[in-house]
């Protein structure tokens, strides 16, 4: 089942088209990456999903139902721009936001206790937010996002501004929520994070959906049959008649081949000529490379 199905979602702001017929599905329980350069329309799209704004046209299904105002209570949204009430105490703040998401006072208190203990910040519960460090505030922010156990968790650049320790901590929590079955929509322009975390991605640029699918499929789709060969001894002398060498050093060579069959033949050829092959690996393109290849220099920034 899909948690979210977007079909031809379109949104314009006066003369500016923020989302131009975007369609994609988010399968339940997956970590889904929403990628795109700055200004591509990611935040506009998220605001539509969180019912902050409405699409001009197109349909959005949340767990099979057309998106309506009851759904946000099943969505947890951490905006890119973090914000809390500075003058409010930590526990009041979390309880208030939890209750706005529909939790009762009792449930909110219980969850609050659980999360404060989990992040080991019980001592801070009656401190005001402005007395907290940035990292601490981020933790509070994260708690307010997940306290109502959302079915869909939307994280807009969740690691921006986090130090490595806290980034890891939040990363672990995201993993755990994922294991518990939460679907996660992860919006970012930082590809290396997506590669580690996401199973499915959609790439949007200038409001248009340019690419979507599972990470492995997309990589396979964009692979250029580059192979890295580690060897001992010498390479055959006239090797460049058959293949293109991309790079080479004493014990390693990267070559570009035509297809998988060509790769097999190339391996046989090496062995036949007495080269000792210690490793033979296909090099898949990174999402970053794919991203740059598709978007090129054409992004808004």
């Amino acid at each position, binding site marked *: 089942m899909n948690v979210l199905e977007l079909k031809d979602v379109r949104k314009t702001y006066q003369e500016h088209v923020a989302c131009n017929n975007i369609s994609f599905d988010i399968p339940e329980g997956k970590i889904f990456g929403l990628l795109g350069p700055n200004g591509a329309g990611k935040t506009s799209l998220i605001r539509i999903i*969180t019912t902050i704004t409405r699409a001009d046209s197109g349909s959005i299904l949340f767990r099979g139902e057309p998106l309506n105002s009851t759904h946000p209570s099943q969505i947890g949204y951490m905006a890119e721009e973090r914000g809390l009430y500075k003058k409010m105490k930590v526990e009041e703040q979390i309880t208030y936001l939890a209750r706005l998401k529909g939790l009762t006072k009792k449930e909110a208190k219980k969850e609050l206790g659980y999360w404060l203990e989990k992040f080991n910040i019980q001592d801070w519960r009656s401190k005001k937010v402005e007395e907290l460090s940035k990292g601490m505030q981020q933790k509070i922010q994260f708690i307010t996002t997940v306290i109502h156990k959302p079915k869909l968790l939307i994280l807009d650049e969740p690691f921006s501004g986090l130090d490595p320790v806290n980034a890891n901590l939040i990363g672990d929590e995201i993993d755990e929520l994922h294991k518990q079955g939460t679907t996660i929509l992860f919006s970012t322009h930082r590809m290396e994070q997506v590669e580690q975390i996401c199973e499915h991605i959609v790439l949007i640029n200038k409001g248009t959906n340019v690419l979507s699918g599972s990470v492995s499929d997309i990589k396979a789709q964009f692979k250029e049959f580059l192979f890295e060969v580690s060897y001992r001894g010498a390479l055959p002398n006239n090797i460049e008649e058959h293949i293109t060498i991309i790079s080479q050093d004493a014990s390693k060579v990267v070559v570009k081949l035509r297809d998988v069959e060509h790769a097999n033949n190339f391996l046989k050829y090496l062995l036949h000529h007495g080269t000792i092959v210690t490793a033979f690996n296909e090099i898949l393109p990174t999402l970053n490379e794919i991203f740059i290849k598709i978007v090129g220099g054409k992004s808004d920034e």
Partner: protein
Amino acid sequence: MNKLWLIIGREYLSRVKKKTFILTTIFAPIGFVIFWIALIFIMSSGAETKKVALLDPSNILKIEETGKLRDGLIMYNYPKEDLESLKKTFEEDGFRGILHIPKQNLDSMTTNFEIEYYSNESLGMNTESNIKEGIEQRIKKLKMTQLNVNELTLSRLETKIEVLPKNIGAAEKEVSSYRAKIATILGYIMMILIYSVIFIYGNMVMRSVMEEKTNRIVEVLISSVKPFQLMLGKIIGVGAVGLTQFAIWAITLPLLYLGVAFVFAGKLQAVQQTLNTSTTSQTPDIGDIGAIWQELQNFNYTYIVVIFLIFFLAGYLLYASLFAAVGAAMGDDWGEGQSLTLIITIPVIIAFYIGFAVVENPTSTLAVWASMFPLFSPIVMPARIVFDPPIIEVVMSIVILIVTGIFFTWVSGRIYRIGILMYGKKTTIKDFMKWMFRKD
């Protein structure tokens, strides 16, 4: 609905629990009381009696025959010394000055009378007027005996004129002259109250909206609640804070007033006395006080309070929603919003000035039209209400105000929902118009 209550609760509690709220709520009445006590002390210290030597060698004032000269502030003594020797010793004898009556003629034809006051300090205004009054009274008495006029005859010459305003429209209604005076004061009080509420609490709403926008929590909030709910919750919550503060003051101020009146009863009496004796002609007599009291009871307070509350709440709603819209449109920068705030403050200030004119002349055309115009009516109509304007005008004014109030809240809601998500762009009035009609 439930969420609206949560928002109202947070807006209300976060303010009521603030130190500044507690301090202003407690200290405003206390400050008022301190000011009042200080006033009592200042006035009663001015009422200090002065001992003065009165020398009347020619016995023109005939004091020895008919007893002592009396006056509230000046205590006269009559030493049997001549002026020159007394000049040297009067301070040792405890006198502040010597009042010397030089030899001159005094009969029923006298129009000018000279007296000399010797002292080392300058003649204060109070002392001078007290001396003048005392001597004048004395001479009046002497003249009365000479002319053979007694107190009764004299008082028969006096006629008190009363102007009775009669309303032609409502002939059966008896209107006393005090009613207009009391109504004027009540009108001013209500007008100033609503004016300050609109400004103080309207600004509070605006700052609160700006705060949520600048610290970016608003995006998280409106993913859980509708922007309109958030705005309305804020307006109601802040309004409730205002009502709480007024309710507390309405209870504590009269209590403190009574307390001070009780503790300083003696002093107050002294102040009252000096006021009475030194300005005999101006103090209202018992009949006046009775009439004022009577008149105060003649006002229909239930009606006035209900009407006041309606205009108070509807006027607050109208202006607070405008302030919320401006707060949403403003960026992180206070300065750039100034021109937008001006759009709201100008009508409030105009209304305030119209209010002053209206209290003076509550049936003028200006008064009638201004109390129909919804941006002015919250301030102008309460100023008029004590003058019993035609009920049809009151109802019309209320209907127009409430309808406009709801309309403005709706319009502001539309500006608000877009404004709070706009960053880094200077908002113009043109943007305001666009946002009003923009779809979600």
